[in-house]
């Protein structure tokens, strides 16, 4: 098996950007997350009266100075119509990450050694919906020439590469809710294997729209019992949980080969030391009944990191607040950690921002890195009455200061696709 530790090319994180329901900007979002604030609210941008789920994690509208999103501050008006919202969110997160890294390619050689790998679970759903309405109304000839490039998932990577002149690998991932972790893990491997020195990687999602909500309602995946108290709806591991809460946003990281980062004196947040994947081969939407897919993804990630479970102090769980999934993941962690489970902190930050689908793994990867930087585990909101006891501390309600040096982040997706990534404090 390919192992990062054994590779002469190590991969570190040197830039990060977030746009999510808690706002725009890594530090702003992190402060709000640790303060126990929630980004989940009633949907008002379209009519949800016919739907059983009426809430979502939505990016707050407002100025950048307030930590909110006014897309006109980021993208020229005439370009906005050429890209679906998920691409716009990817560009916002990428701008912060690239700025934060302090790096721009200056020579052609540098440009060719820098790539992009940003994925999305669903891509341009609102754009597809609008186009379908036009076709349905007999206006097939009036479809915008920007419809296809606006909706295509890999166009997030395309736009980011165009904006920064990144001519290395231009790639994308589509693995439903595991997209973000796959994007980071695959991008790190491209660097480790020598395909690139720098990768701008992450995930973006903007499916809080009519058909996105209707579709997930139809698959019976969403919380429907907290429409009047939205901030209480996402409650991973709690006895009263009843489904996940849709969220939107993007997380983008600048991954860089260690020596490349050192040579330019870059600020290094953390090292990517492990990445593991698995498939359930079981059901299109339900996780395997014994949680074995989650178990094997985490085990493979720890193997590639060449560390024992006991060396991990924090897990950012997939933990979507669904009745089935949360306890299966918990069971898989208990099984893998064994006696070390009692020293472990595991929280679900989806309790504060909802489920960002293809962006979840990237945003939660950033939270895991910040947990290492600040030695604090972010809380699981609304975990008032766990549905079952566990030796694993699920960081209920309040953040916990802990000596975190290694963190693992999980993302599992429809189709039975699982991915885990491991970060360690900067070398």
């Amino acid at each position: 098996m390919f192992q990062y530790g054994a590779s002469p090319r190590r991969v570190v994180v040197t830039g990060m950007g977030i746009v999510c329901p808690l706002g725009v900007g890594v530090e702003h979002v992190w402060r709000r997350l640790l303060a126990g604030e929630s980004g989940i609210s009633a949907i008002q941008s379209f009519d949800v009266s016919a739907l059983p789920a009426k809430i979502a994690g939505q990016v707050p509208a407002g100025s950048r100075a307030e930590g909110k999103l006014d897309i006109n501050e980021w993208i020229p008006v005439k370009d906005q119509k050429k890209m679906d919202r998920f691409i716009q969110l990817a560009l916002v997160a990428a701008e912060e990450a690239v700025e934060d890294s302090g790096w721009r390619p200056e020579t052609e050689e540098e440009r060719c050694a820098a790539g992009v790998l940003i994925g999305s679970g669903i891509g341009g759903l609102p754009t597809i919906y609008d186009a379908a309405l036009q076709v349905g109304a007999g206006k097939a000839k009036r479809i915008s020439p920007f419809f296809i490039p606006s909706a295509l998932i890999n166009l997030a990577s395309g736009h980011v590469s165009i904006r920064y002149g990144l001519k290395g690998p231009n790639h994308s991932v589509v693995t439903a809710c595991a997209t973000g972790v796959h994007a980071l893990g695959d991008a790190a491997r491209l660097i480790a294997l020598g395909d690139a020195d720098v990768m701008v990687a992450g995930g973006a999602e903007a499916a809080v729209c009519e058909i996105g909500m209707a579709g997930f309602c139809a698959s019976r995946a969403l919380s429907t019992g907290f429409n009047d108290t939205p901030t209480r709806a996402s409650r991973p591991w709690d006895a009263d949980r009843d489904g996940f809460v849709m969220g939107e946003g993007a997380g983008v990281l600048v991954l860089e080969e260690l020596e490349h980062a050192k040579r330019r004196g870059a600020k290094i947040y953390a090292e990517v030391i492990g990445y593991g994947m698995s498939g359930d081969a079981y059901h299109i939407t339900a996780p395997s009944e014994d949680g074995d897919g989650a178990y094997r993804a985490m085990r493979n990630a720890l193997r590639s990191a060449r560390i024992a479970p006991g060396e991990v102090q924090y897990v950012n769980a997939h933990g979507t607040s669904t009745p089935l999934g949360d306890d299966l993941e918990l069971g898989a962690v208990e099984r893998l950690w064994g006696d070390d489970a009692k020293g472990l902190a595991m929280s679900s930050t989806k309790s504060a921002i909802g489920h960002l689908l293809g962006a979840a793994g990237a945003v939660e990867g950033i939270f895991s890195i910040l947990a290492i930087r600040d030695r604090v585990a972010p809380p699981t909101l609304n975990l008032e009455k766990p549905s079952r006891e566990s030796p694993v501390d699920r960081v209920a309600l309040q953040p916990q200061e802990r000596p975190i040096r290694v963190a693992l982040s999980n993302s599992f997706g429809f189709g039975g696709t699982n991915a885990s990534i491991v970060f360690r404090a900067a070398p």
Partner: protein
Amino acid sequence: MSDTAEKVKKIVVEHLGVEEAKVTPEASFIDDLGADSLDTVELVMAFEEQFGIEIPDDAAEKITTVKDAIEYIEKQKAA
């Protein structure tokens, strides 16, 4: 300026995000106003919508300046 010219100008300003002063009759959509080939397709669709006319592809290809657009549209409306 004719009513058609006013409307054409307004559409160009909106779709290409350019300053009104730059939208002179001689201005070329691609060379002077920063449009790419997809922008011009969208512009022609906007003209069709605004003026209730059909602009076939072979005619659309010949509309490269603001003046081309105004003249074509006025001819269609007169026909």
